[in-house]
């Protein structure tokens, strides 16, 4: 089996948590990966998948722009963003500050910090849209100053994988395109489980084979 070339964007945010979750996911799925941290445009070369950790989206955007990383990142077939990472991937962003640029690759709309300030941050069990594919089980997953997904383009292949139980708000979404796989979460599964990372590796591998 070909070794998947996976990177974790390491400019700012919960980087180590994603490294740990990705390593655990590779062990569990037995998918061979080569994992590296990425801080410059040169380090993006040859990557098949990139994880975009949560952090501050304004900070991440600024550092990506300064290092001319946004354009080369758009060519990576697999992207998985949590929280701020999803904000970077979304085509539509409400509440972006002036000058904040993203990748504009995923056909979803998000509202930055929609759940409000830190005292409104919470942890919650998630509701899988397909019980056979329940990624997080009964684990409570943290939402930290989280964005909300406000728009989903189903015609473009975007699918909701999990929602918040009471409100039905989408919190894990995927998009399948020819030879590509995008995954985005408003919460932080990397703090609790490697299950969502397992899905990312499996689906990315499948997308690259197709």
């Amino acid at each position, binding site marked *: 089996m070909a070794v998947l070339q996976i990177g974790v964007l390491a400019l700012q*945010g919960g980087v180590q948590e994603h490294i740990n979750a990705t390593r655990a996911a590779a062990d569990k799925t037995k998918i061979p990966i080569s994992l590296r941290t990425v801080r410059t445009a040169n380090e993006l070369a040859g990557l098949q998948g990139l994880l975009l950790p*949560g*952090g501050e989206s304004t900070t991440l955007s600024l550092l990506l722009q300064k290092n001319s990383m946004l354009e080369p990142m758009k060519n990576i077939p697999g992207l998985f963003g949590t929280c701020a990472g999803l904000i970077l991937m979304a085509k539509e962003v409400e509440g972006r500050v002036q000058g904040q640029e993203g990748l504009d690759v995923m056909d979803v709309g998000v509202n930055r910090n929609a759940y409000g*300030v830190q005292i409104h941050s919470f942890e919650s069990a998630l509701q899988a849209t397909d019980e056979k594919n329940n990624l997080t089980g009964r684990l409570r997953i943290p939402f930290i100053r989280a964005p909300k997904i406000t728009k989903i383009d189903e015609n473009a292949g975007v699918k909701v994988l999990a929602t918040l139980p009471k409100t039905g708000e989408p919190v894990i979404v995927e998009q399948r395109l020819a030879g590509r796989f995008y995954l985005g979460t408003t919460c*932080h599964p990397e703090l609790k489980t490697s299950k969502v990372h397992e899905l990312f590796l499996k689906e990315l591998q499948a997308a690259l084979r197709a």
Partner: protein
Amino acid sequence: MESPAPIHGTFSVKSGLAQMLKGGVILDVTNATQAKIAQEAGAVAVMALERVPADIRREGGVARMSEPGKIKEIKAAVTIPVMAKCRIGHFVEAQVLQSLQVDFIDESEVLTPADEEKHIDKWGYKVPFVCGARDLGEALRRISEGAAMIRTKGEAGTGNIVEAMRHMRAMQRGIDEVRAAAKNKKELASFAKEMRVDVTLVEKVAAAGKLPVVNFAAGGVATPADAAMCMQMGCDGVFVGSGIFKSADPAARARAIVQATAHFNDAELIARVSENLGDPMRSIDVRTLTPENRMASRGI
């Protein structure tokens, strides 16, 4: 069955915000204009306070929590998290800051301590707390009280990194000692007794080889190279106080420190961003400070 209702203010939600700040720079600001400059420079959060430490040193008097109107003004000016300082042991300042919905509270030795006996019991708050520490024992005492994030104390307002360095080394030494004793229950118990904390906390550090919460550097960071050195020493991120708004060109210096923190191993980049920043803040040789002028020895 677990309740499907979301739960707020849990420790993983509180320490989770600190985890998302890693690799970032948190800047001291006293008003909305400075907060905007900080956000535009790429700060991951701002810290609201009445006066920056260099001014507190110069002017003397009692340094308190920032005025609520100022905090509101700063919150309205930026979308990044807003932290604010309260005095050590001043649990009502902390209650006020929580009611103002700041994102993080710094129970800080930089302000004049309100209680020389006890720190705030931080478990009862939904807002997470960060506290300063000079060594492992101090850090674990603060974590026992509910702190969700630790920073070195350094010596604030001096522009001198030497004390932060001392505290980073002491912290690492403490962790190494505890780790070396990981298999010896009796020895861990004696560490716990010496540090005045529960042995389970010491066991956690021994097993993980690091603090159970995020650990930033603070106190004396004045240049991009200072920030990068703290990162190379193993800190998770950097607080910069007087170093920005007491320098000749705050916006340029803030941008440079943000870049140097993200690329802390890239000496060429640090050299490039350090060019033409103008004068750093006016600095103080820590050895000339009298004991009563040392902030780090407050609230241990």
